[in-house]
């Protein structure tokens, strides 16, 4: 019996499969003399232990949703089979808030009601606008906006072969700080009985409501309603998609938008900018509310006309990206050939007004059940009685006014005070009894350490899919976090103005176990002093990226170092770039069937596409570089630049 046969039998026996008596005898005999196979058996049981004791995710109760869908199916038998449109993305409730990069500038006042109409023109040659003007202009306008309403027309191509075009109407209402409504009415003339994509989303402070057809395999899909009560202030899980009003998330980062030119849209002077679809998702919040929509490719180009005077988005179109990757993607979705110069999706403003909407616009329909986020509204004067401490809650933070205070969860001993001005918000959370092993709030142990003016340090994370920009402050006797759509510089200033002195992370937070390995957060200097190889940084990083944190890693066979490089504004698109170094003379064994060899400059390396990871050996040093949102050529550029011109000397 050879190893392979023995392992195969062992594997079956471990799984409780019955072996023939002769096979059992032969196997046991082999095991007596073969240490390697005994190791396999021990390993298999260890593996079982690891798999079975992995923390099981909480399972949701879906009985009601399933039975509603089943009921709808039995009441309305399908008239025919239809091509089921795939989901485009994990459906987050609503897209996150992100925010612009630079300090506010004063722009022209927003005056009165404007009505737009008439033909639009091609952009003029040349442009007086730089990308930073756009970002700063939007940022400044955000704080000034108190009320807004508008109506739009939406045209979509290629939902399915029998629905080549769709026409929908959208209306949007906003009233600062936290009232928002979005209606979509589907005017498409479908060839067969089809549930129209009629959507409604209402946010009114502590309550929100969403309704739309749930995705289902038939043409007639049941309507799904969801209500959130005791909503957290500016909840990102049940967010108001205010980018439709001002694209402060989509156009937060001047490094990632292109100004195409100026022109006149519907009689208004306007500037046109372009961003890839993956960054423009907040301008398409209806996709995630419900119903059936065409899919979009991350690199499809979104061209947005912005009103030059007030930065409202007036018109935006999606143009297909080019290239083999997109073609293959389109094939999988059953899309027809889509020329790159022809818009496949457009949203056009028909009229925009700054009038305050009627209060009844934000009425939330009565429904039987609601999800409870558990945020209980309290008077600041009562907080001490409820929690035993007086929270830090100045009248204004970062130039925003105090808006409401909640106890986020009963008995958690936490407070949350929200601040707002126009479309800008800031949440200030606090606890006096934090005993977690990472900073309080949605801030991880790999967050960037930032000095605060006036002394002390804080830990900063850029905006992500699920959160705004945030800061954690660990101080004597208290732990705080701030989450906001303010630009980084303003958020840091707001944190610095709080009457606390931030301390460095305690040792218990900086040390963690990762399986059999340990990782310890250290300064770059400490890391350099601790490992026998030089730590060189890449000089060619995407714009806005810098070193966020460093970890010393020990897997039991010598020290390694992991560098975390992040965008200072937003994680959307690229994510965290990680560079890991350790002494080694050869690459670890291949772990994926998709891996391929690449040349990294003059050195041989390995590329793993599903992890966007490059690995190579350079003079006895193993390097691994990965970033979820980067393609091979972008990773190669970073890899080649390592040590070429070190940014920090």
């Amino acid at each position, binding site marked *: 019996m050879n190893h392979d046969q023995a392992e195969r039998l062992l594997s079956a026996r471990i799984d409780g499969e019955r072996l023939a008596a002769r096979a059992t005898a032969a196997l046991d005999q082999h095991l007596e003399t073969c240490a390697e196979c005994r190791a396999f058996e021990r390993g298999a049981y260890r*593996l079982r232990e690891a798999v079975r004791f992995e923390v099981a995710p909480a399972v949701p109760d879906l009985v009601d949703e399933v039975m509603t869908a089943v009921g709808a199916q039995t009441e309305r038998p399908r008239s025919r089979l239809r091509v089921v449109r795939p989901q485009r*993305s*994990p*459906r987050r409730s609503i897209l996150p808030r992100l925010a612009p990069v630079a300090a506010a500038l004063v722009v022209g006042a927003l005056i009165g009601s404007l009505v737009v109409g008439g033909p639009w023109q091609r952009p003029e040659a040349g442009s007086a606008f730089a990308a930073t003007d756009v970002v700063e202009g939007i940022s400044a306008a955000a704080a000034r906006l108190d009320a807004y309403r508008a109506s739009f027309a939406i045209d979509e191509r290629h939902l399915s072969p029998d629905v080549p075009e769709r026409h929908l109407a959208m209306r949007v209402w906003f009233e600062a700080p936290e009232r928002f409504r979005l209606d979509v009415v589907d005017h498409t003339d479908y060839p067969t009985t089809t549930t129209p994509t009629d959507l409604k989303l209402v946010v009114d402070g502590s309550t929100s409501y969403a309704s739309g057809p749930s995705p289902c395999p038939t043409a007639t899909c049941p309507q799904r309603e969801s209500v959130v009560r005791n909503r957290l202030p500016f909840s990102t899980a049940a967010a108001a998609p205010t980018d439709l009003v001002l694209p402060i998330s989509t156009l937060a980062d001047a490094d990632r938008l292109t100004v195409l030119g100026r022109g006149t849209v519907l009689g208004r002077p306007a500037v046109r900018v372009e961003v890839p679809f993956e960054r423009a998702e907040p301008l398409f919040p209806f996709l995630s509310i419900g119903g059936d929509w065409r899919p979009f*490719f991350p690199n499809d180009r979104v061209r947005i006309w912005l009103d030059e005077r007030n930065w409202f988005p007036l018109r935006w179109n999606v143009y297909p990206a080019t290239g083999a990757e997109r073609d293959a993607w389109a094939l*999988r979705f059953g899309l027809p050939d889509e020329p790159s110069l022809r818009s496949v999706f457009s949203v056009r403003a028909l009229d925009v007004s700054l009038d305050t909407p009627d209060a009844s616009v934000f009425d939330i329909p009565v429904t039987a059940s609601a999800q409870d986020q558990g945020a209980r509204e309290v008077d600041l004067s009562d907080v001490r009685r409820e929690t035993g401490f007086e929270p830090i809650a100045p009248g204004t933070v970062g130039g925003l006014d105090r808006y409401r205070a909640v106890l986020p969860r009963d008995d958690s001993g936490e407070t949350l005070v929200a601040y707002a001005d126009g479309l800008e918000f800031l949440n200030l959370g606090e606890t006096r009894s934090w005993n977690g092993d990472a900073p309080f709030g949605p801030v991880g142990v790999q967050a960037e350490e930032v000095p605060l003016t006036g002394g002390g340090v804080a830990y900063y994370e850029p905006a992500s899919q699920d959160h705004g920009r945030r800061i954690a402050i660990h101080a004597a006797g208290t732990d705080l976090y701030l989450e906001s759509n303010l630009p980084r510089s303003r958020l840091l200033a707001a944190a610095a103005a709080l009457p606390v002195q931030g301390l460095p992370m305690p040792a218990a937070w900086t040390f963690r176990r990762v399986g059999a390995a340990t990782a310890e957060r250290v300064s770059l200097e400490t890391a350099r002093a601790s490992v026998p190889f030089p730590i060189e940084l890449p000089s060619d990083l995407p714009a806005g990226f810098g070193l966020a944190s460093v970890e010393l890693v020990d897997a039991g066979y010598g020290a390694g170092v992991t560098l975390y490089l992040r965008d200072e504004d937003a994680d959307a698109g690229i994510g965290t770039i990680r560079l890991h170094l350790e002494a080694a003379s050869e690459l670890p064994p291949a772990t994926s069937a998709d891996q391929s060899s690449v040349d990294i400059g003059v050195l041989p390396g390995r590329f793993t596409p*599903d992890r*966007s990871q490059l690995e190579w050996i350079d003079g006895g040093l193993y390097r691994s570089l*990965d970033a979820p949102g980067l393609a091979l050529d972008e990773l190669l550029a970073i890899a080649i630049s390592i040590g070429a011109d070190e940014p920090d000397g």
Partner: protein
Amino acid sequence: MNDPDPRTLTRAREGDLGAFEDLVRQYQGDVWRFAYHFTRDRSLADDVTQEAFLRAFRFLRGFRGDSKFTSWLFRIARNCAMDQIKARNVYVERVTPIAATTADPQARVELHAALDAVSAEHREPFLLVEVFGLSYQETADVLGVRVGTIKSRMHRARRAMMDALEVEEEAR
């Protein structure tokens, strides 16, 4: 994993919504966990679960009982999960890469890295047998392959995962 009470199954096949609801209640947890292992995405697991039960309801009359009900249900759930994964492949991997936390060598020791290290062809039977406790025959029914194939895939899955998990110990 136990099969349902045959009477419940019979009533559900005859269109009794109450009986079908009992089945949903009994198996939604297993189907959801299975979908979650496949997709590693909560909202997608919700969708897969919902769609799996919708399809199960639609095709229940055609269930002839030549495999266990749970194997049949898992096969449907698997198909739904595959449809979802195919549909969102390129897009989602760019937006929320599943392997985002497993790429550096320190994380090779992590279980998920090990799971990522084996191909779907090997991961699927491994999860069905190890996590859901299915027999080789049931797993073969779910995946539509022969029992012998499950046997060798289980062996290879274990070998590959152990290699991925222990690569440091052995390589150095």
